[in-house]
């Protein structure tokens, strides 16, 4: 959503880059090679794990966008408890009707939620919850010019 807050600046970026894969784009498989991938969210389950490893393999510059990707943030709050305890709490203790832990259809939870860079190498970090549009714009502009952005003037953890 923060990305969309770039508003008309999106056009500036669109002039230099094309969007090849995104929840907004109707393509189901990750392309063979992309120059830049922005990744949001923490790595929580097996599906995330496999996805991010695949993305890394097919990406030149990987950017962690937002606190969840960088610090684990709110999703990582479950890390103080075991994955089983979390499932137990969500699907048994707080449920009155047919309590059961789903085995199919739902990806297997990792023992711990992990920031992206603990799983694969990350090149650029844009912290913030959410990162301000200015930070995203600055980072993208710099990256498109082939420079590594220093974002400390634009954003911070939590901001």
């Amino acid at each position, binding site marked *: 959503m923060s990305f969309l807050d770039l508003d008309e600046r999106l056009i500036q970026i669109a002039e230099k880059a094309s969007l090849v894969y995104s929840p907004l784009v109707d393509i189901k498989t990750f392309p063979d090679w992309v120059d830049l991938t922005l990744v949001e969210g923490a790595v929580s389950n097996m599906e995330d794990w496999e996805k991010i490893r695949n993305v890394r393999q097919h990406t030149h510059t990987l950017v962690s966008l937002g606190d969840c990707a*960088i610090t684990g*943030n709110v999703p990582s709050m479950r890390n103080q408890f075991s994955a089983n305890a979390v499932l137990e709490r969500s699907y048994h203790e707080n449920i009155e009707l047919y309590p059961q832990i789903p085995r199919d259809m739902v990806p297997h939870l990792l023992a711990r939620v992990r920031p992206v860079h603990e799983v694969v190498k990350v090149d650029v970090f844009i912290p913030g919850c959410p990162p301000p549009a200015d930070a995203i714009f600055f980072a993208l502009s710099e990256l498109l010019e082939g420079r590594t952005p220093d974002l400390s003037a634009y954003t*911070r953890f939590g901001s």
Partner: protein
Amino acid sequence: MSRLSQQVVTLKIDGRDVGARSNETILEVAHENDINIPSLCSVEGLSVVGSCRLCLVEVRGTSELVSACSTYVREGMDIVTHSERLSHYRQTILSLFFSERNHLCAVCVSNNHCELQGQAQALGLSHVEVAYRYPQLPVDASHERFVIDHNRCILCTRCVRVCDEIERAHTWDVAGRGVQALVITDLNEPWGSSETCTSCGKCVQVCPTGALFEKGKAVAEMSRRRRFLPYLAKTKEKSS
């Protein structure tokens, strides 16, 4: 740590010639001259502990780093407060702070008012390289006006010092040791049932993070008022 003989000395900080009294610390002299040295444990009006290690500076001619908050200036000192090496050390130290407990800026009462968060931004810490430890820590909301959330405590001991040195109640202290250390009230009893706490709230005002806060504050609402501290510290000095 008062010194009897006060001399005027001149020294260099980041290449600038500055004058100072010999009973001033490097940190004090730097601040007087608008030179910023990061720190988390030190706060004007309380005793010096030198525990956060962010204010380490280089002194030309020696190989060891010294903490600016606890080192008195000397004639002819040549101090470097910012260098690539110092910046790397400071970033790593901040990473260690972030990895130690459960710091979630986005949902913290002190978001945008937090000194740890502020230092991370100022020192350009974009992510934490070391593994997060995710310890299970308690939140004590038994006090009628205040809360302590150990998930956000960085053990700077400002609360312990202000309670002992200014309020003279010594309700707070540190229990345990190493990575297991926790600030506690009395015999590790709920804060609300403490017999010694005067509910003055000074500890809450000096806390650099969101560990101590006022009840009823929501995310990003907890700002601090610390103007009382230098004044009370002076009064205390006069009376002792």
